[in-house]
């Protein structure tokens, strides 16, 4: 074992419940990128302004007709659900993926519904900074996250008229280490009495069960002990997957029944339904379209922010082909670079992710932007890697920041590169 590998393994093994290697591959780098306070401020300022544009756009999205929602990629089954606003903020935990250079900050995409990269940036980054004797740019963000979660849960309960002891369940797919440990981290950080369960342990009653004309089991979502759940924290389970959930015996669409429970205020979910409303990458095409029109829905200052931070994005590739521009084709609900393709200025495909999970989904076309590169230290030695920033927007405020380093298409095989100053 080489010395670097030994040191890396020794360091990360001290961090409890962390996945520094995934699927036997190196994930968290025993390395740190030094940033200036100016860069951190620039990223946070961009995050606040971009987040504001999305939050301002959310009421407009809720007013769209069904046909337009379909054109933005939202399945019919989700339309009534995504029009709900159960919390004063549209999403509790949002991550913006940003390209940052000396000249500019540009938004690649927003992950409003089920962002991960949370424990890495909010917790582990600080431990790495201590090791490298640097200041942690994310200092204080963990408390900000905790307060935001507490507020989300208590507001959700109040909006349903619940008080006193409540059943709060954090759920994940336990066989997926990152999902489970991210969810467990959030549960422990929040600090309220709550339970962790696997999704398969939850049971749903979509109609009250009667015996001699009396309700013996009320409508609701139940935990493994048969207790009704008030708040379901589903940090890692996307709504576009939930709608396809079926009961293995009856084949009833239980995911859609769960969404009905939320609509009927029998259950609260966090992130809230409106988080999914912002998840479609086609929303960036809508925002860009209103910007091109210089529509008065946005103020002049907001138009400046869109011009400064957003990339031209459409539902067609025509503009880029006509103008000889390189562009990226992305599925509206794609994740981790899956199914992403890059095209040259002549329209020729020049790079693609080998996963094709979303190949039949609606795509958006976004102006291509080169990711900057840096040298990273890995167990296999130094490597040149492209990098982008994940910048969190928590309850409407800029928060923790971290780097994903890898190929031009940031995918599941990308590294976590801590930052310090």
């Amino acid at each position: 074992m080489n010395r670097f590998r030994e040191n890396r393994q020794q360091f990360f093994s001290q961090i409890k419940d962390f996945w520094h290697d995934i699927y036997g591959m190196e994930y968290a780098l025993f390395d740190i990128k030094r940033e200036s306070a100016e860069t951190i401020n620039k990223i946070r300022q961009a995050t606040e302004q971009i987040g504001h544009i999305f939050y301002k756009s959310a009421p407009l999205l809720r007013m769209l007709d069904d046909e337009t929602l379909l054109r933005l990629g939202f399945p019919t089954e989700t339309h009534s659900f995504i029009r709900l606003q159960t919390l004063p903020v549209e999403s509790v935990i949002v991550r913006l993926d940003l390209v940052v250079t000396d000249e500019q900050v540009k938004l690649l995409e927003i992950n409003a519904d089920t962002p991960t990269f949370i424990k890495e940036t909010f917790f582990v980054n600080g431990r790495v900074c201590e090791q490298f004797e640097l200041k942690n740019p994310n200092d204080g963000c963990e408390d900000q996250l905790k307060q935001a979660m507490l507020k989300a849960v208590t507001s959700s309960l109040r909006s349903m008229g619940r008080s006193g002891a409540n059943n709060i369940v954090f759920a994940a797919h336990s066989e997926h280490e990152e999902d489970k440990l991210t969810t467990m981290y959030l549960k422990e950080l929040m600090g309220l009495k709550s339970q962790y369960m696997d999704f398969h342990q939850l049971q749903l009653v979509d109609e009250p069960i009667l015996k001699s004309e009396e309700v013996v089991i009320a409508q609701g979502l139940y935990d493994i002990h048969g207790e009704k759940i008030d708040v379901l924290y589903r940090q890692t389970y996307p709504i576009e997957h939930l709608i396809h959930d079926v009961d293995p015996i009856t084949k009833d669409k239980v995911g859609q029944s769960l969404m009905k429970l939320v609509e009927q205020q029998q259950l609260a979910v966090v992130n809230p339904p409106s988080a999914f409303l912002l998840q479609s990458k086609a929303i960036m095409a809508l925002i860009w379209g209103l910007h091109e029109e210089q529509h008065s829905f946005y103020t002049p200052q907001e138009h400046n922010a869109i011009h400064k931070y957003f990339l031209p994005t459409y539902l067609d590739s025509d503009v880029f082909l006509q103008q000889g521009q390189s562009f990226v084709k992305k599925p509206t609900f794609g994740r981790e670079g899956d199914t992403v393709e890059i095209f040259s200025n002549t329209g020729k495909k020049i790079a693609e992710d080998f996963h094709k999970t979303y190949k039949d989904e609606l795509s958006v076309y976004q102006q291509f932007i080169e990711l900057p590169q840096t040298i990273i230290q890995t167990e296999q030695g130094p490597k040149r890697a492209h990098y982008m920033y994940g910048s969190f927007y928590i309850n409407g405020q800029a928060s923790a920041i971290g780097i994903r380093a890898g190929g031009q298409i940031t995918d599941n095989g990308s590294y976590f590169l801590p930052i310090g100053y």
Partner: protein
Amino acid sequence: MFYMLSQQDIRLSHREGIFSMNKTKKMMTGALAAAALLTLTACGEERGYAEPTGTDCDDWDWDDETGTYYCDDHHSTHAGSYYYGGKYYGTKNSLQTSADYKTYKTNYKSGIGSGSKGGFGG
């Protein structure tokens, strides 16, 4: 280096019909209709009434969905409450089921309709 299309280039291209942009155009038709309605609503909205004063809530936010004020201060005794017509409602449900609010809500929707009449010609 990547050349960025200017806004003017793109708008001209659209007008001249060089691109089909079918999916984008169809989506934007719906988006522009909603944006026009919301913009006009905002012009005539004026928030209807003033936020409550003399409470221990430091953060009364305007809630677009209900058209009322919402206390977003979790240290307050009014935390999570809605304010309308001089009364506080502990939950959204209690607000929405009150007779006062139902009357107001009807009026609120009427306001949206009347605002849009004067704006599309502009």
